[in-house]
């Protein structure tokens, strides 16, 4: 039992940190630039695929460096030649644009890399168990994932608090012209931020690719969960996103690990229903079954009782 708990926690943290890598980018793009970027997870997928191709020739580490760069540049280009034009016609326009983009990227990936799952492997160096606890291995690679994620958090946090980028973006969303009049090159900043955001998604892809398997559907799997995190964390709050990521990671992993469900509850209450009871489905639900939707439940609850999210200041 104990080791289940311990490993559930570890797994939860790993998932959480991974989610944060994605969320960090989206926090920049969605909660600061206000762009509902539905293609974010697609950039994550691109990261994985580029890294895969690079790793075939130059090995994993080259992929880790260059794949995010490529993705970032792509992102910047998208901002420059697409979003910027769309931006004037409002959030919904951006949303639909990124919808289309997500479509496009998924199809493009299938077009260039085919539809099969790709054999993208973790690097040899990290291919050993970091520690073995009660007969279970915890691979070094997962440790590495955590490290990177924490690194990103610290770096971003520093940049956003120490530099004025954060507030410039915030101001420029509503008053671009005024900010320009004060001598800031707004378009460049937006392009940069979007680039960095997508690059971060790329990093997440590079790192998640080997563990979560690299296949055309990998974006869809994470698609909306990232938004959930950013919103639960609270718009504009990096720390919020961080906490939310871990929260959701742990929530899901505990839910899966636990074997409790309605039946246990009913036993507790001393109730029991016939198998042909109309609500039989309800009486037989158990937590692992509904683990994947718990985040959305959390989302709805948070928004109902705390519309600004956990650490959110800004409310739109």
């Amino acid at each position: 039992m104990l080791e289940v708990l311990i490993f559930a926690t570890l797994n939860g943290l790993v998932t959480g940190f991974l989610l944060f890598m994605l969320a960090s980018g989206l926090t920049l793009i969605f909660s600061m630039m206000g762009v509902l970027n539905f293609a974010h997870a697609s950039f994550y997928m691109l990261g994985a695929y580029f890294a895969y191709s690079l790793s075939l020739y130059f090995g994993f580490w080259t992929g880790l460096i260059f794949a995010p760069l490529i993705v970032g540049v792509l992102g910047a280009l998208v901002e420059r030649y697409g979003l910027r034009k769309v931006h004037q016609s409002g959030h919904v326009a951006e949303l639909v644009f990124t919808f289309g983009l997500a479509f496009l990227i998924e199809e493009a990936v299938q077009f260039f890399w085919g539809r099969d799952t790709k054999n993208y492997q973790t690097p040899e160096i990290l291919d050993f168990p970091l520690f073995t606890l009660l007969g279970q291995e915890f691979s070094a690679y997962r440790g590495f994932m955590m490290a990177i994620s924490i690194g990103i958090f610290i770096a971003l946090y520093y940049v956003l608090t120490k530099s004025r980028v954060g507030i410039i973006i915030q101001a420029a969303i509503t008053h671009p012209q005024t900010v320009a009049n004060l001598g800031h090159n707004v378009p460049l900043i937006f392009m940069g931020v979007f680039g960095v955001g997508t690059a971060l998604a790329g990093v997440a892809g590079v790192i998640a690719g080997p563990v979560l398997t690299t296949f055309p559907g990998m974006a869809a799997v994470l698609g909306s969960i990232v938004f959930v995190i950013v919103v639960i964390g609270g718009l504009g709050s990096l720390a919020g996103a961080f906490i939310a990521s871990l929260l959701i990671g742990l929530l899901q992993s505990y839910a899966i690990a636990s074997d409790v469900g309605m039946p246990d509850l009913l036993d507790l209450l001393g109730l029991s229903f016939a198998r042909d009871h109309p609500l039989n489905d309800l009486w037989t639900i158990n937590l692992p079954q509904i683990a994947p939707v718990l985040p959305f439940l959390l989302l709805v609850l948070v928004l109902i009782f705390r519309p600004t999210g956990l650490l959110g200041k800004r409310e739109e």
Partner: protein
Amino acid sequence: MTLLRKSSIWIVFVVALFGLPQIFDSILAISILNQMAIAIVFALSYNMLLGQGGMLSFGHAVYFGLGGFLSVHALILIEFETMVFSILWIPLIGGLFGLLAGIFIGSFSTRKAGTVFAMISLGMGELIAASSLIFSSFFGGEAGISGDRTFGPLFFGFDFAQNIEIYYLAAVWVFIATLFMYLFTQTPAGRMANAVRDNPERAEFIGYSARKVRFISFCAAGLFAGIAGGLFALNYEFITEENLNAATSGRVLLMAYIGGLGYFIGPIIGAVVLTLMNSLLSNYSELWMLYLGIMFLLTVMFLPRGFAGFIMMHQMAWVRGNMKMLVKPYIVTGIPALLFAVCVIVLIEMSHSDEETFHFLGMTLEPSSSITWIVLIAIAGAAFYAVRRSRAQLLDAWETANAAPKEEQS
């Protein structure tokens, strides 16, 4: 006069609704028309939220789906004669349930608009989609549930076994729904919905609770989405989880947006266009999704107010009788644009297909020989350049065509 003009649009609408199946009577055509009918009601109902109420919803399929499920259950009840009434009223059942769902969810989700609303709708959408898989005794799991519409009392001897019969039934419902949704925009509630969309705070200072105004449009949207769901149930006689999941919600958003949120007919256009693309494109190319994606991007970038907006852009020119000014520039720009598109498509398709000869619009090309590629790319480049060059003139022509004639200017 204005009355005549207004009603004339409706007459056209009716004629279209009931005339089209006369012209396009193949089974496929009817099936497509049926899809359109459903999509139109659904998209219009979505626009009540987003276009008129300023509420961006990622979960609108929920009301469509629930309405549909209830309707199929109704069909089953009719089949086993637990209930006896004509299937004419099935859409109403769907609508009522959509309304109920709207009242329930709206009661807490319409408190705020903007991101909060959007995300609650996303969450609820996912939750309900997920639970629909869990409660398989009601929702029938991933295989869904199915009924049979041919039971129940006949309607003037029709048992609605054939899709064409269902289409006419649907057409009637579409007309009614559309009419009512239009009328809604002409009522105080409808107008206040716009006001709240624009400036909820101010609305409160002229006596209206923004939340309640939103709630009303939200419920109305639920009702009509449910009706659409009912029509779906009648048409396909079955329904599955995918009819209330995020993908469906996304599709209706795209329909409404591409069509043009700002205009009542926008969603109708969007519904028609997307349905057509969906059913025609998909069987000509494996890559149709790719093209669909590209089309979205281009539409959003170059027609920010959707197709309807694009049409409306010519209203002035039309009124002023300046349309002829536009003909030439449109041709000048249009032809190379078309050429460019074709070339690109051919290039994509060619690089995708692994046959050694490649047939397109009657021509035969060898993907193997590099000349083919060079030529195509060259043409594409030239065409693109031509478009870039002529675009300025087009815009200019358009400006002048829309500008007031000299004497009006002051």
